[in-house]
């Protein structure tokens, strides 16, 4: 299986007056062609930052301080801005949380989609416009031929997110980075958008990195899931494995804290405390102050990701560590 995206020990840091903050700490994972990989974690875990690093849109003063990002066998983390701009849109499509801020309010949606197509593909404006209409139709926008000349404010939230999906997929990218694509939407619209994203990516064979805090969305969309905590990867595995038999205590807590409509429990599992600030990440395992299974070793030594069956987890609880 060929990997479209490969991230190796990626670190991102923010130099501040009070010292350098490590926002991402040696994050590694890969996404194969046609695969949907979910990235979950609570606010501040570094999910969106990973996405921003991949598409080369880190907000200064944030910078990649170590590691590599490979897209189809080509290293992209050190490319000059000009070249990165050609890759964005052509090879990596991006979908953001708020559909209103990712569209230009001064241009019609048709113009924006056609512009992307003309920039990246060898088509004329007329051909691009026709392709834009096809794309809008494929995303389920009724009367696409008329709607193409409308401005973003004339669309509702769900319809706007459809336009953004059409825009992200306009140049048939190899990889789509979707950062909380349904968080701003109501549940009934959420289902429609997730279904659409899945369908469109499957048809185009695009790999998807789906960043969300909603385990439910991951459960029904993703093939594999990366659980992040305090800028590190806690666990990687098949969605089913991580949901039903999580290996890392943080994943265990995370799954238990989600209320379910299929069972009635008196109390939810709670993880005491909260995510550490970047200025005060504990030594050893970042999760140790909140961990119910904490051992002396966890406070001193940082665990590496270890293969455990089909999953990988970074936790000293698993004795596979010793064998290796």
């Amino acid at each position: 299986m060929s990997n479209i995206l490969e991230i190796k020990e990626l670190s991102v840091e923010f130099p501040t007056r009070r010292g350098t903050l490590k926002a991402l700490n040696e994050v590694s994972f890969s996404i194969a062609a046609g695969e949907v990989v979910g990235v979950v974690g609570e606010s501040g875990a570094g999910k969106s930052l990973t996405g921003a690093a991949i598409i080369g849109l880190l907000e200064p003063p944030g910078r990649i301080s170590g590691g590599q990002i490979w897209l189809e066998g080509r290293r992209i983390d050190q490319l000059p801005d000009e070249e990165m701009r050609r890759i964005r849109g052509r090879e990596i499509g991006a979908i953001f949380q708020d559909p209103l801020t990712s569209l230009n309010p001064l241009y019609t949606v048709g113009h924006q989609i056609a512009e992307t197509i003309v920039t990246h593909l060898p088509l004329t404006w007329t051909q691009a416009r026709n392709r834009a209409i096809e794309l809008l139709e494929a995303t389920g926008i009724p009367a696409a031929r008329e709607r193409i000349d409308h401005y973003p404010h004339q669309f509702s939230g769900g319809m706007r997110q459809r336009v953004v999906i059409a825009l992200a997929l306009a140049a048939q990218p190899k990889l789509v980075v979707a950062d909380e694509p349904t968080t701003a939407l109501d549940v009934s619209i959420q289902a429609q958008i997730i279904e659409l994203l899945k369908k469109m990516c499957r048809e185009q064979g695009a790999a998807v990195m789906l960043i969300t805090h909603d385990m439910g969305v991951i459960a029904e969309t993703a093939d594999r899931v990366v659980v992040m905590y305090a800028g590190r990867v806690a666990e990687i595995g098949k969605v089913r494995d991580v949901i039903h038999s999580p290996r890392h205590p943080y994943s265990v807590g995370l799954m238990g804290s989600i209320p379910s409509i299929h069972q009635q429990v008196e109390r939810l599992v709670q993880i005491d405390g909260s995510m550490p600030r970047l200025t005060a990440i504990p030594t050893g395992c970042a999760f140790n102050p909140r961990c119910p299974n904490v051992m002396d070793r966890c406070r001193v030594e940082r665990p590496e990701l270890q293969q455990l069956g089909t999953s990988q987890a970074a936790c000293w609880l698993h004795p596979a560590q010793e064998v290796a």
Partner: protein
Amino acid sequence: MTTQRALVEVKDAARWFDVSAPWLERVLSRKPRTLLRAVDGVSFTIRKGETLALVGESGCGKSTIARLLVGLYPLTQGSILFDGQPLSNMQGRGGLALRKRLQMIFQDPYASLNPRWRVGRIIAEPILAHTTLTPEEREARVDALLIQVGLHPSDKTRFPHQFSGGQRQRISIARALAVNPEFLVCDEPTSALDVSVQAQVLNIMKDLQRNLGLTYLFISHNLAVVHHVADRVGVMYLGRIVEIADRDTLFADPKHPYTRMLLSAIPDMTGQGSSRTPVAGEVPNPLNPPSGCTFHPRCPFARDLCKLESPSTQVFKGVEIACHGVVQGWPMQV
């Protein structure tokens, strides 16, 4: 624990907002006044000691109901009785005693606490307004409240920005509990929080309800959270309640097509990779709601009657429901 006595009775409550264009523009371009019917004829009761949850999508009027219940908005029509007394009395003499018995927890813990006040002063404010405790007794009460919500008495000298979202929401809960209210209106208390922190706050709220015999109105858009906390659930759509039922009845056997649609839109956590049943359409513009039953443009079972006549709320098999099809027994299988 739950008794039959109704603590809160809402009868045909309505709240309309005037969202007309400015006067000059209206006169020049001959526009009529426009009314937004945020809540339009809602009736329900909440029994002492129970949790009633209201669910619905954005713009359906959930938060407006919360604000009506604590008197932050006046009613346009209808009445709300709290323990037999009309809430409209809240402004007049004796209103203070009534207001003390109901408190509210807001959605955004970053906006609902004064950033310039220390936590101790924030929690003591309602005590100062409603009781005649001495300063020492007040301090002791603040300490006890902080412990009750899982914080430390020494936290009272700190400012809100020194706390995380979940801790701030606990401070909001402590403030709401300061005057020993009987009824708490919780407007999306956990939707700004991460899941692990949401679990902490939900657990505290359940413990407090058990220990203090509180009655909750719990507003949320998250059905899984509602399933966890509620005894009864009301489903809202465009300013009306379309179905109210016991939690187990509602989740096991939803009757209204909109409720069924909402339930099928919940993500499936079993990890089977099975997808939700996507539903067509979106919530219409509340400024220009559809005729008859407002759900009819999205309803797969709508008939001509639904376009003409708005269904009234009726009791059907123990469930209060507003739907022509369910009450008349139309075949409603997909």
